[in-house]
């Protein structure tokens, strides 16, 4: 889990007025943590994906995702927003939690992708969403996701 999640790429106090400011913030964190080899290309990829269809999946959560060679390793960057912002979400509600899934172009069948799949499944469950939203430290967020995903992987395998 440490490879996919780290405190360095989680910010629970993001001040942003729109999607692009969230993308910029998370790109900066990912780049500082050595997870990108071309931050500009990465940022453009995430924006291009977002332009196709909204990643605001409802319940106040967005899951933007880029899949590009500009990424070094599968990662999940997380932003909790000070103020909810409009994300053209499927249910029309503003977004206050962003889980940005960061995927290298060539990572088919990668075990890390199973973690992203498991996290995606967990986000459907209201209990899990509420626990994550109430978490006050990055360690707490990592523990919550780590525990839940490990359980899910054990059950499903």
């Amino acid at each position, binding site marked *: 889990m440490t490879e996919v999640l780290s405190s360095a790429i989680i910010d629970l106090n993001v001040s942003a007025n729109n999607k692009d400011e969230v993308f910029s913030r998370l790109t900066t964190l990912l780049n500082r943590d050595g997870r990108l080899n071309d931050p500009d290309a990465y940022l453009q990829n995430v924006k291009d*994906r977002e332009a*196709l*269809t909204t*990643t605001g*999946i*409802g319940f106040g959560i967005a*899951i933007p*995702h880029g*899949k590009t060679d500009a990424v070094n390793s599968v990662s999940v960057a997380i932003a909790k927003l000070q103020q909810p912002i409009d994300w053209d979400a*499927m*249910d029309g509600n503003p977004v206050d939690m962003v889980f940005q*899934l960061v*995927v290298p172009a060539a*990572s*088919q*069948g*990668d075990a890390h*992708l*199973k973690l*992203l*799949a*498991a996290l*995606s*499944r*967990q*986000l*459907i*469950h209201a209990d899990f969403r509420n626990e994550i939203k109430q978490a006050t430290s990055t360690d707490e967020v990592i523990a919550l996701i780590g525990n839940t995903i490990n359980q899910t992987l054990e059950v499903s395998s």
Partner: protein
Amino acid sequence: MKIIAVTACPSGVAHTYMAAESLKVAAEESKVCESCFVETQGQIGIEDALSPTQIQAADVVILTNDIGIKNEERFKGKPVLRVHAGDLINKSPIIIEKLAQKLA
């Protein structure tokens, strides 16, 4: 009502699995749904592949229509509902309810 479904999405990273999970949760909570099996066709590959027995027993097939579904010929002769993965994520309970009304 016995439901089977296959979910997929363009990047195969997130919506595929959210749609599958959302449908399963809604099916478990529904009074009209006897069983619900969901195959995912994501970047990981095909998981929870539907068995011939599951397919044969199904009353209805739900397929996401965001990208093509592999091996669709398996469902020949079955009623098929095509929906966006996003609709399954947000509206699975309503979709199940409407299907039950239609098939009744």
